[in-house]
């Protein structure tokens, strides 16, 4: 399997463009507990990358590590050629990376509107056009503008979290299980939205348990298990790989 991984990192993606995110030999964890071992990952400009893997594989940990939220133990993370290892999240945001965490991803006591405004905190002014775009994508948010976010349903909260991350029009968007807890129509819609966002030029790095759908849509996929790279290939190739299907996609 290690040979697979090495091979994987060397394979060039189909997408043209400069390298946006480059993770090399990343070791990270919580406290003394190491979760990720020697993880490599790349995202190119405008690319759509999906990470799949079993529960507890370290997918979320990887996302958090990119965003400087875990205990860094080795390796580097570069963004647009610049070393961002160990930067503070607010600086990483300035670089143009947006992040929607898996859990706890809204300000429960703030209203929906305020949540969205927070998304644009680093700007001097709330960009009205961005707000309009978000409202257009998620009409329920406009309807519930004044509701306390914590009282929205699970799915509504997920949309709000997405909306918030979109407020800054990032060049790379990290999404941790964006479809979890969404109704089927919304899952579909969410994936469509992500496609849209991606097509508009934003690179997407996404973790998904809805693996088949995600792999079908993405440019490239990584399979993470036990905190290590296992496979990397185009989405369709992974979908068709017998081994991957059996071990990670439930047959």
């Amino acid at each position, binding site marked *: 399997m290690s040979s697979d991984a090495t091979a994987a990192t060397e394979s060039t993606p189909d997408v043209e463009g400069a390298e946006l995110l480059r993770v090399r030999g990343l070791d990270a964890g919580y406290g003394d507990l190491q979760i990720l071992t020697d993880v490599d990952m790349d995202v190119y400009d405008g690319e759509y990358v999906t990470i799949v*893997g*079993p*529960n*507890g*594989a370290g997918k979320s940990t990887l996302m958090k590590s990119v965003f400087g939220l875990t205990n860094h133990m080795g390796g580097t993370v570069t963004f647009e050629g610049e070393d961002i290892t160990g930067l503070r999240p607010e600086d990483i945001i300035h670089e143009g990376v947006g992040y929607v965490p*898996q*859990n706890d991803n809204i300000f429960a006591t703030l209203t929906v509107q305020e949540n969205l405004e927070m998304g644009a905190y680093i700007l001097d002014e709330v960009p009205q056009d961005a707000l309009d775009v978000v409202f257009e994508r998620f009409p*329920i948010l406009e309807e519930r503008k004044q*509701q306390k976010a914590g*009282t*929205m*349903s*699970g*799915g*509504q909260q*997920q949309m709000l979290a997405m909306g918030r991350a979109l407020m800054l029009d990032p060049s790379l968007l990290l999404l941790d*299980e964006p479809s*979890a*807890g*969404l*109704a*089927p*129509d*919304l*899952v*579909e*819609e969410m994936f469509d939205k992500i496609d849209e966002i991606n097509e508009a030029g934003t690179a997407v790095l996404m973790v998904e*348990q809805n*693996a088949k759908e995600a792999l079908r849509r993405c440019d490239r996929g990584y399979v993470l298990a036990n905190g290590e790279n296992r496979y990397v290939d185009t989405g369709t190739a992974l979908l068709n790989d017998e081994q991957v299907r059996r*071990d*990670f*996609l*439930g*047959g």
Partner: protein
Amino acid sequence: MSETESGPEADEFDSEAEIDATSSPDVSVEYPLQVDGLRKTFGGITAVDDATFQVENGTLTGLIGPNGAGKSTTFNLITGMIKPDAGTVTFNGDDITGMEPHAIANQGLVRTFQIARELEDMTVLENMMLAPKNQRGEKLWRSVTPGVRNGVIEQEEELLDRVWEVLEFFEIDHIAEEYAGNLSGGQRKLLEMARALLTDPDMLLLDEPFAGVNPSLEKRLLTHIHELREQGYTFLLVEHDMDLIMENCEHVIVLHQGRVLTEGTPEDIKSNEEVIEAYLGGNV
């Protein structure tokens, strides 16, 4: 680690029944759970609006609906976590409306949470040992009085055996001594379900038990659920994965804007115009 099929028989659980007030699922009631005219408003928002439905004994019933339809709120109302503004909940013929959560759980109606809530600083074993009902040692005086305590210890031994059986059944016995806080999302879901089962419920309410669970694990979990259902347990399941609902549920209730939009077999639901419009979004 892959041999799964040796789940315990129903009577294996029952053999421990002497320590439990209630025992195996009560077959005499055809519809153990009846919800009638349930209503709850938060400020201006009516989360649940005159919801009326019932769940048939020994079935795996699905509760579906768009985000914000009021499914979790319905669960909270049924299990006493919040109090309804109107309506009644009847369980096994008893009116349980507005009762305290622990009292409802003791009646045999047990829930899991949409976001798995583990007792993080307790080991998996401790989590599990907590669950069984009416343990002798839960009375403080029994636990500390010399002599009387022997009875408590004895029961602990029995419980532990049963806990191991259930852990093996759910295939999480290898992490039995791990702290629950160190489990991954999927393992937590398993633990949560295993723990709920140990309370020896008649009926389980599962709130999106498969959200975020890896597909292979999901499959095995479903196998367990089916086995349990065959043993006579009743399940009410909230889930968004329509394929899963279609393949596994006998009966589906569709909630929309706090009301029951329709109910029926998966086939009925799938072809129901209203449902397609409100929920499935035309792409089924």
